[in-house]
């Protein structure tokens, strides 16, 4: 095997000794396969892919890579949508896909300890028989890893009631740039010894170190769960209904909206959920809790939906039916593959009362640029996912997508919202950070990173804008984003 810049023959041998034959890849195919995650607007290949099986192996591999002068991009399943899990250019991808052991499920104290590569849904499966579940449920939960969820502070439909990952992490095992292993928190994190360092690590997008093990809270499965489907002839009315439900102190566990184009794509896929084709928008709601509480809340929700013009609704507590309804929602991104080869999934947050305004802005931005827009959103959280279909081979179209994305983000920030709900900043929203943060803010972020990672070893070139904000502002739009980096 040829050696590459930075990694000597003996270092390569050492890596292979640590993680085994199948754990080190430097061939052209592997480099190509790791050149992107779920974000396809730009791509760049690593020079080596390392897949350790344990914390110890990861720590040893980190030391070899550091000595070789390679930077490290941590990666889970690579389902992320902001480009966080792929390199800027070269370096090593350190993947946790082979670290997928559920180390402990404690039914009494209601926590689980898992390796970072455990797939989200596998954790819930592992504690299902104990009547417990792990709450954060990103749409990619059948593939994404707990480690990746920690990196992006992932949410999911049920984040509305249960909050995103940060509310569920009790402890972390962190490998730093020296290959040192540090345990933070634990199953019983109180009383806290010193500062709470879990806070800054959750959502740090792999820029402060590699998380190899996670201890999470498990919740008791609710006694009753009901899924409601409300059909609207008008997307705006559907948005307003959400705002009203929340104003009336109703507390479902999830409120989702899908628009017509999304419904069509989902219904044409293997995950067809039986969403009616005659609706302009569907609202998918889940209510959980005690039987009485669920029944009352469902009634009230259906009432509000009706007041806002819902022309039909369904209500089910049958697990099979519910699963089907949700499978359609969770496969919505992938189903868009039927419309065009690539999909840009924006991820913005606005106050719920302004949902319809932003939907309008997104629609106009896309119509003016001849782009197809489909909307899916975690409406309860005010978290919108305007999905723009494109073909990455059309460079000019790619730049129009980037433009539309920036317009949507600016509108959200102007409306008092945020750049990202749950997908992270990564590469996608790096420049847009300047819309939300001042140079001082960004400076503070850099200082925090420097405490954990003074040598800029972990996932460099992400999240914090590389160029100064002044420079970014003076340019109308970042044209270089449309080009394929290889």
């Amino acid at each position: 095997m040829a050696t590459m810049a930075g990694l000597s023959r003996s270092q390569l041998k050492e890596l292979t000794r640590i993680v085994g034959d199948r754990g080190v890849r430097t061939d052209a195919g592997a480099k190509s396969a790791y050149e992107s995650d779920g974000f396809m607007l730009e791509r760049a290949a690593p020079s080596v892919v390392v897949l350790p099986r344990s914390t110890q192996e990861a720590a040893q591999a980190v030391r070899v890579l550091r000595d070789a002068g390679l930077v490290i991009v941590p990666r889970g399943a690579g389902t992320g949508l902001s480009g966080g899990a792929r390199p800027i250019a070269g370096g090593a991808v350190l993947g946790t896909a082979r670290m997928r052991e559920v180390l402990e499920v404690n039914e009494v104290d209601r926590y689980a300890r898992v390796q970072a590569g455990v797939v989200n849904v596998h954790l819930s499966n592992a504690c299902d028989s104990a009547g417990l579940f792990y709450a954060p449920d990103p749409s990619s939960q059948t593939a994404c890893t707990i480690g990746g969820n920690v990196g992006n502070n992932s949410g999911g439909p049920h984040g509305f009631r249960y909050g995103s990952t940060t509310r569920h992490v009790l402890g972390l095992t962190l490998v730093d740039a020296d290959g040192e292993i540090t345990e933070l928190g634990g199953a019983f994190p109180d009383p806290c010894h010193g500062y709470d360092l879990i806070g800054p690590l959750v959502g740090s997008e792999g820029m402060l170190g590699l998380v190899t093990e996670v201890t999470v809270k498990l919740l008791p499965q609710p006694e009753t769960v009901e899924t409601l489907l409300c059909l609207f002839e008008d997307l705006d009315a559907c948005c307003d209904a959400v705002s009203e439900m929340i104003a009336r102190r109703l507390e479902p566990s999830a409120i989702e909206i899908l628009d017509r184009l999304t419904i069509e794509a989902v219904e044409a896929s293997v995950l067809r959920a039986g969403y009616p084709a005659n609706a302009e928008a569907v609202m998918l709601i889940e209510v959980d809790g005690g039987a009485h509480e669920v029944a009352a809340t469902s009634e009230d929700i259906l009432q509000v939906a009706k007041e806002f013009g819902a022309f039909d609704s369904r209500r089910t507590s049958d697990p099979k039916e519910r699963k089907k309804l949700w499978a359609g929602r969770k496969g919505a991104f992938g189903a868009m593959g039927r419309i065009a080869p690539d999909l840009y999934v924006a991820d913005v947050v606005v106050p719920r009362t302004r949902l319809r305004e932003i939907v309008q802005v997104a629609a106009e931005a896309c119509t003016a640029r001849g782009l197809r827009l489909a909307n899916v959103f975690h409406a309860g959280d005010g978290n919108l996912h305007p999905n723009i279909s494109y073909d990455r081979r059309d460079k000019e179209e790619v730049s129009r997508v980037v433009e539309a994305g920036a317009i949507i983000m600016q509108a959200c920030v102007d409306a008092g919202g945020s750049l990202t709900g749950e997908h992270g900043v990564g590469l996608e929203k790096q420049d847009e950070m300047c819309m939300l943060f001042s140079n001082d803010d960004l400076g503070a972020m850099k200082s925090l990173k420097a405490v954990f990672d003074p040598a800029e070893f972990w996932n460099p070139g992400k999240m914090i804008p590389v160029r100064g904000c002044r420079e970014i502002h003076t340019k109308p739009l970042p044209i270089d984003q449309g080009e394929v980096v290889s």
Partner: protein
Amino acid sequence: MSQAPNTDTKTPCADAPVGHHRGHPTSKESLVDHARSLDCIHCGLCLTTCPTYQLTGSETSSPRGRIHLMRAVAEDRLEPDAGFREEMDFCLVCRHCESVCPAGVEFGAMMEFTRSSLMERQKPGPFARIARWVGFRRILPSRFGLKAAVLGLNLGQRLGAIRLVAPLMGLRGSVMRHLPKVPPRAERKPLPALTPAKGEKRDRVLVLEGCVMPELFGRVNHAVADTLSATGLDVLAVPKHVCCGALHAHNGEMQAAEGLARKTIDMFDAVDASARVVIDSAGCGAHMREYGRLLANDPKYKERAAAFGDRVVDYSEELNRPEARERLDPLLTGDHGIQGTVTWDDPCHLCHGQGITDQPRELLDAVPGLERKEMTAANSCCGSAGIYSVLRPKDSLDVLAPKLEHLKDCGAKTLVTANPGCHQQWQVGVSREKLDTDVLHLAEVIQRSLRADS
């Protein structure tokens, strides 16, 4: 019974090859099915379903990764080198990824395309070429060839020669040692041209006897004919027909597969051109349903092939039709002698290839006194995958390993399946692990449960 409607709104890229089989690929672009590769949106929802990704944790051996590699080759960003070939060969083509793909990527078809192109572009070495020629051209499609091979196996087993040769063949040998005992001649008798309906005749169906089925699992074919005729069907066999070409298509022998498809259509239509074609081997069924796609570029056969594909039904599908169940249910007794719990293991080409999951379970549940328990990951691959278990014995057994653990956890004393490859693979696994579990085809369970007088 037809395939799920594909309401693809995408217009294929103008420069991409459309259609299926072409002549020898001249450029890298034509090496893979570029148009189909564009359906993949890189979401990654397929990752955890993939048995080879489960083994390696590497993107290159995941469905998304393989599609990425194919597309990179087509777009001239990657050489179709030995590494590329290895990832294509490593795939079991279980098509589990298709069952979860929201974008409806036709992964199995893409993989068949790529393998076939690779085979044409880069011929295997002389030894492999002879082995392939013997296997695909002389044994599989010929009853004489199959009989000769089985005779050899039989002699080997009786004289103990397999025991002597096996160690020389390494892992391959250890798998060979677990080949099913060649059954007695009586069980290898072909089906009669007609097994007449018992009781009032309500319809007629054709059945596929298949290539290895009559030699190694002849009793299954007989069980199929018995149970179908018991529900009032005339069961028509097609004498002299041997092979449907599924194994050829899965392994890059696309031209041979096309020839066998035409032959199959001709021979079956000659017996009856409108009856449903009942298949008891999931791999064959999944392939035959897609004859229309396989022969899409053949103007003479295109329409006939599509119509033929629409007539193909799985055994469980046929027997679970309401009119069949009406006749079957009163015939079922608890006097089947099957002790302990049973579990159904979905053959990949039944659940992922044909979307059939409920029918076999409903049939098992209809048998009195049979307690069925679900096995974890029943719909994931057992590692048999046609001739994969012979070509890559180590990977095949690695894929089987977690399935054996699930079987142990489930505690079933009888594992029921519906594909000769899976049947064989499970027998290997069960005997390696010394488990006290019987492996049966669904038709055998139903046959044992039929009233003696029926």
